[in-house]
Every structure is written in C-alpha cells, then in structure tokens.
C-alpha cells in the first residue's frame, strides 16, 4: 500500500497546471489575433481609405466625384483597358494551351522529363523583366534589317502591331510560365492521373475525350488559379509594355497620373477595384459551375446519411 501511494499522488499534483494553462493560453491568442488583424487592417485598408478620401474630398469644392468621371472621359481609357483585357485573355489561353498538354504528357509518358520542364518553366524567374525587354527590343531592332528580303520581315511587323502587340503576348506568356507551372503541377499532383486516364480509356474514351471529359474537369481548380495569377500579372505589368512603347492600362494610368495628383490617385484606386472585380468574376465563374452540377444531386442523395455529406 505504502508503495502505491507515492505514484498515485505523483500524477495528481501536476493536474491543476495543464487545466489552468489552456485557459490562459486560450485568452492570449484571441488578443493576439485581434491585434494582428487590426494592424493588418490599418496597414492595408488605411492607405486605401485615405486615397479614396483624397480623391472625393477636394479642398474648396467639398465632396465630388469629378476626378473619377474625368477618367472615364479621358482619352485612351477604353482603348488601353480593352488592350489589357485582350492581352490577358490571350495570355491565359496561350499559357494553358502550351502547358496543360505538355504537363499531362510528361506526367503520363515521361516522368523523368519533369525536372527538365520544371527548370525550363522556372527560367523566366531568373531573367529580370528589364533584361527580357532589352533582349526583345534589340531583336526587334535587328530583325527587320537581317530579314529584309524574306517573309519574316512581315512577321516582324505583324507582331508589333500596336492594335494587338503579339510581342507583348509572347513576353507575358514567358513571364506567366513559372506561376502557371506551379499551380498546374500542384493540381496534377493531387490527382491519381494515371488511374483516372486508364479508367476513362477502359470506359471507351479515346485520348482527346479522356482529356476533355476527365482530366480537365478535375483540374478546374488549378486551371482557375492559373487564370487568376496570369490575369493579375497582365493587369499589373508595366515594365515590358512601357519600354516597348505600348499603352495597356498600367502604362496609361502612369501617363495620365503625372499631370494631376487627384486624378493620379483616383486612377490607382480604380485600377485596384478593377483588378478585384475581374478576379472575383473569375472566381465566381469557376465556383458557380461546380455548384450548379453538385447541388441538385446532393439534394437527391441526402436522404439516408447526411452525416457523410457534411464531411467535405
């Protein structure tokens, strides 16, 4: 008996501390969370609120939206916006058409090449935009001279067409490659691609239909993320476009802002809002489709075991 008592009391003494500690611990993170949240809000939203205030509250005039209305009327607003959106759409399409088939093929047929593809796709990260642009512009300068007599001369002209500068598209695709590769690769990694493809082919689907009906729908999240990042990249790209002398939205904003402080700030606010709106639209487009297919089915199946449905 005597031997039993010490071990019995031993564990009983420290028990109060574990129960007391969580109480204290639980209180602190809440405080910290609030504090960190507050700092983040002030850091991000403070400047924005100040900017908005600055643009709508003009000294001597009071509240006015004139700086915003001025932008919509300003020359080049719509054309630069259209150019940017066209470039974004084309970049997204080109990047995906280039990468998706390549990544699927590498994963299924030559897994050893994956490292090579990864290195290739990451290369643009080590080339600064300015260096890339310098390279492009020197090629564009020499090209026409060297190929004067050949059909390539026309090509050089065509890709520099200010209406839709293909050369910018090429540069953007290059710059988007690392981002697109990462997201698509992560998406593919989450799938048991080989089994899905075999199951699909076993169900009588040839290669093209397998990709369209099985692989792409399961990559939707990754495709959406790729589109997201590429869109954000193209919307904010300034260096290449500016040096090559084109005027997409970002370049136009800078050129407009120089003259009037209020207009300059309101343009920044506007571009911020525009980016947000586009990204939200993209997200909504992606999410909407999945819910449309999922909802009616779930309702039909809900009857026996609802608990299982709540897991995801």
């Amino acid at each position: 008996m005597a031997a039993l008592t010490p071990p019995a009391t031993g564990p009983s003494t420290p028990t109060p501390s574990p129960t007391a500690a969580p109480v204290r611990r639980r209180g602190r993170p809440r405080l910290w969370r609030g504090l960190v949240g507050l700092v983040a809000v002030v850091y991000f939203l403070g400047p924005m609120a100040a900017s908005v205030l600055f643009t709508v509250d003009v000294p001597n005039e009071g509240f006015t939206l004139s700086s915003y209305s001025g932008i919509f009327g300003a020359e080049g607003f719509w054309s630069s916006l259209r150019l940017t959106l066209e470039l974004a759409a084309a970049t997204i399409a080109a990047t995906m058409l280039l990468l998706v088939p390549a990544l699927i093929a590498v994963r299924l047929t030559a897994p050893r090449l994956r490292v090579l593809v990864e290195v290739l796709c990451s290369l643009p990260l080590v080339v600064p935009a300015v260096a890339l642009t310098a390279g492009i512009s020197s090629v564009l300068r020499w090209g026409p001279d060297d190929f004067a007599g050949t059909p390539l001369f026309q090509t050089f002209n065509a890709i520099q067409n200010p209406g839709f500068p293909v050369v910018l598209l090429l540069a953007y695709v290059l710059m988007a490659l690392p981002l697109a590769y990462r997201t698509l690769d992560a998406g593919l990694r989450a799938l048991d691609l080989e089994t899905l493809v075999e199951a699909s082919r076993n169900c009588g689907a040839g290669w093209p239909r397998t990709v369209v009906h099985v692989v792409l729908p399961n990559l939707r999240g990754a495709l959406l993320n790729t589109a997201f990042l590429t869109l954000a990249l193209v919307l904010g790209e300034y260096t290449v476009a500016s040096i090559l002398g084109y005027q997409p939205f970002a370049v136009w904003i800078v050129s407009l802002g120089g003259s009037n402080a209020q207009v300059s700030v309101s343009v920044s606010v506007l571009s911020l809002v525009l980016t947000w709106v586009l990204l939200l639209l993209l997200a909504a487009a992606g999410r909407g489709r999945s819910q449309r297919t999922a909802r009616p089915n779930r309702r039909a199946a809900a009857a026996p075991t609802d608990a299982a449905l709540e897991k995801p």
Partner: protein
Amino acid sequence: MTATTTDRTPTPPPPPLAADAGATVEFRGLHRRFGATVALEGLDLAARPGELLALLGPSGCGKTTALRMLAGFEHPDAGEVLVDGADITKVPAHRRGTGMVFQSYSLFPHLTAAENVAFGLRMRGTGRGERQRRAAELLELVGLGQLAGRFPHEMSGGQQQRVALARALALQPRVLLLDEPLSALDAKVRLTLREEIRRLQQDLGITTLFVTHDQEEALSMADRVAVLRAGRLEQVAEPAELYARPATAFVAEFVGTMSRIPAVRAADGLVEVLGRRLPAAGEVPAQGELDALVRPEAVQVAADPQGAATVVAASFLGAITRLTVRLPDGAEAKADLPTEAAAALPVGSPATLTLPDRPVLLDHRRPS
C-alpha cells in the same frame, strides 16, 4: 426487369446486362521486360467462357502486367492476347471491350456515382434517358441504388469499389478484369464484397480475370486459380486440386500452409519420413537431400512422454489450434488439432508426429 435484379432471388437476372455470356481469353507466349526486370517470361494461359480465373502470385510475378495487357494498358514485347480467338494485341485500350476495376479508387472525382457508371455509355453516345436508366439499373445491381447522386468523396471505400464494378459492367464487356479490387478495403467489407462479386459474376456469366496476392481470396472465389511465379505459369487448377495436389513445391508453399519435414530416400522410389515409408507424389528430385511438404491438417500429433518432438508454440484459430512442433533434428512442423485436443499438448510438452499413409510431395532441401 429491374424488379428481378433488386430482390436477390437465386433466379439469374435478365440477360441484357451480360454480354453474349462469356468470351474465351488466351495469353500466348507473353513476354515483357521493364528495363532489367522481367515481368512476363512466356506466359501461356487460357480462361474458359464464363469462368472466374484468379491470377495468384507474389508481388512482381507478372499477374498485374498480364491483366493490363488484356486491358490494353501494356504491350507485350512478344506474344499475343486473344479474346474469342481474335488477336487483340494491337487494338487500342478504349476499343478492347473489357471492363476493369482498379486497385486504387478510380472513380472520376467530378462525377456522381450515377454519372460515373454512365460515363462509358456517354462516350459511346447513348442518349441521356437510356444512360440514366442503365446507370440506375446497374447501381441497383451492386446494391447502391440509393447513392446515385453521391460524389466519390462522399462514399466509403467499399461503396466506391461497388460503383467502379457497376461502371466496369456498364458497357457489357466481354471480359471483366479485377485488379486487386479489394486490397484497399478493410477485412469485413472485403469479405462481403468478395461474395457479392462472385454472385454477380455467376449471375452474369461473364468471363472474369481476378488478380490477387491473397490466396484465400483466390481459393474462395475462383473457378480456377492460376499461380504465377517470375513471369511464368506454375500451375492452373481448380482450388481444391491446387490445394490437394500442388504441381510444384512453389505452389504447395504459396497456397495454404506447408511444413518441411526432412525425408530420406528409400528403396523402390519410396521415401522415409518420420519413421514411415511413403510413396512420392509427383516427381522426386534427382539428387540431393529431400524435404517432404505436408499440410498442417495432415500431420497428426499425439502427446507422448517418450516423444522426441516438442511443442514450441500454439496459436488459437477458433475451432482448431495450430501447434508448432520442433523435431529432434531442429525442423519445425505445423499441425492443426481440434482446440479441445490441443489442451492436452501445452507448449513445452513432448509429442509424437505421424503422417497418414498417403503419397507425399517432395522438394530439394533448402539450405537453412
């Protein structure tokens, strides 16, 4: 028609679900190498119409490779695959007309159970109404009619494999291929699904190849079992025959439990085992020392104070208890006893081993 498939009466369901009931499948001299590893080295094997043929063997014996060749996912270096006598070696996978259930969960994550089952019909261009009707019918057949709207991630592993089975049957395949479909499931589900697959297969009369490394699964489900080793066929036979009359020592030891008891050559082609002269079953290895291979249920153990053998371990298996008995020369033999009888033989007690007067299977003695 669906009514007959839902209630599980022994009457076979209507034919439309089965293809023209049972094709023959034949592998002829299949060879396949992956770099330095040999997966198949001249496999010859034929499945009869409507039978369930299990391909059994240790991992790396080529059983899955053979199955994937039939599905069209692998191509042989040499040899051919025939279905109903026609060479399909060059036919692409999506035109093979085989239905396959995979080892890993292979349902399309973005489709519901019903859409998964209907996928093949959709690829074939069947109309929506017909597709839905057939999918519902097949899900009913595998007992999951009420889960038609579930997505794969909302189903258990067993349910997913059932849906996969329904999907494999949707196109009325000539051959059903099962690639270890139960190995990812827990023991209980595995048992029920095993019976269910067998029942369905018999009802539909579809020729089925079933790859497994689990001998119990193979013996309990299959009409015939083909034991593969290192890319070759060791033996193909009905389960009872495979168990009772294994053609080679490898089959004997792979299927069921076998003990090795030292044997000595005696006159007239007999061998002496445990002090008894017995005829040899099958061939006697030409040279070297011999072991007799015996099943635990064939070994008789009796408590004997003068016995030279000692009980060294006992494992309780329910109605029977399996004793491990050490012989004087150090060899160990396993023997099954009714559990009550085993009570007289506690671990450490002396005993005598005897063999029945039947031919014994012999093999070279292994260097221990």
